[in-house]
């Protein structure tokens, strides 16, 4: 089943002549792990934020499981779509448990059900529930905060997860761990993941298919293997060449 479909999505921000997005079309199947790769300003975050209506397209359509998201109430829509951002965005005045339990609480789940869900999610993201549920965000490391951010986004069991450079501000070792964990979590849940990054290694490692974007355009959308073998555009070629050069640099050093 098609989870997300973009049809000729365009966006131009007021005060800017350039397109943030120029006629982007793509179709994503349920259960895929899609990474969106591009440098800053290429429109990848804009595309992501349109998927949960934090931004509205100027023209074009976005369908979620066959339904036009423009027809849905934005708040309802967002409750069915998990959202994780680089700055984490945990509520600093609330404990881990209260953070993860925020939406369930607002939806009037009873307390026991929330506690069970928090335990479940903390276990899923690899944090011992009893050690962490009572802590405040400021008492956590960056990596732990991002795990909580993931748990928070998963609280209502959304079918689609949007992740906007979630590991962008995290050190290399923790980052590798988190990437592996994210793959494990994705594999176990059968959800559709849409993951924005500017790191080509991260994009090709995580995504079963990769969207490569530049200057508001979707240049290529294919499996990592196909992209490497048949780059569709000079920009993609340059991107791959630069990644290869980095690799040879490492080989020369060791």
């Amino acid at each position: 089943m098609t989870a997300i479909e973009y049809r000729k999505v365009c966006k131009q921000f007021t005060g800017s002549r350039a397109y943030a997005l120029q006629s982007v079309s793509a179709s994503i199947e349920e259960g895929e792990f899609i990474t969106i790769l591009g440098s800053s300003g290429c429109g990848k975050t804009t595309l992501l934020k349109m998927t949960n209506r934090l931004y509205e397209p100027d023209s074009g359509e976005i369908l979620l499981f066959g339904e036009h998201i423009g027809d849905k109430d934005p708040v309802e829509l967002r409750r069915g779509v998990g959202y994780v951002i680089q700055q984490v965005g945990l509520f600093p005045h609330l404990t881990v448990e209260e953070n993860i339990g925020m939406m369930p609480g607002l939806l009037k789940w009873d307390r026991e059900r929330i506690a069970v869900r928090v335990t479940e999610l903390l276990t899923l993201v690899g944090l011992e529930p009893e050690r962490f549920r009572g802590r405040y965000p400021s008492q956590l490391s960056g990596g732990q905060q991002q795990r909580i951010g993931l748990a928070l986004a998963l609280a209502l069991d959304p079918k689609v997860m949007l992740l906007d450079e979630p590991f962008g501000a995290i050190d290399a070792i923790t980052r590798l761990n988190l990437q592996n964990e994210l793959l494990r979590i994705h594999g176990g849940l059968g959800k559709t993941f849409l993951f924005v990054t500017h790191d080509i290694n991260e994009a090709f490692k995580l995504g079963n298919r990769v969207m490569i974007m530049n200057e508001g355009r979707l240049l290529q959308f294919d499996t990592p293997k196909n992209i490497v073998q048949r780059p569709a555009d000079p920009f993609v070629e340059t991107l791959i060449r630069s990644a290869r050069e980095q690799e040879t640099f490492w080989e020369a050093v060791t």
Partner: protein
Amino acid sequence: MIDYLTRHPEKIINPLLQHIQLVAVTLVLSILLVAALTLLSLNRPRLSNALHQVLSVVYSIPSLALFAVLIPVTGLGTVTAVIVLTAYNQYLLLRSFTTGLREVESSVVEAARGIGMTEGQILTRVQIPLAKRALFAGVRLAVVSTICIGTIAASINAGGLGALLFDGLRTMNIAKILWGSLLSAGLAISVNALLKLAEERMGRT
């Protein structure tokens, strides 16, 4: 001075109570009004700017002049005093409420919106709790300013400690002058200190 207090305690206690009442009524009205203005203007930068401009002009009018302007409309007495004092507070309160709420980290607000909280829920569950210190500091400022400007309200028959002060001045009664100024200054200083203490406590939790 002590002699005056023991002989006419009601002449000092009554103005003090009157003053506190004036401040309390003004404060309740001010907060209700500013809450409405803040909600209305928080996400409308142009309206917010216009409101700030207008209120800062009102704030810069000398209190006596503002009292005088309103006397033909609402007459002498407490009603006029409360209106003027509430009007002054709007500038102080709106400014601190608006900046307080806007200073809440935008990533937190965006994350809240992204997980499907309504704007109302974001305000009550996230922005207000995170801005509570700034909000409270604004209220403290408004209370102290009301206590001080409130003494001038005596000039339009609104009573309070100002009445004691003006009476004393007119009749050259030193005890009255001293009690009037001591109590109004003392009230302002002690209320300020108390609220500040509460504010610091609040920040720690």
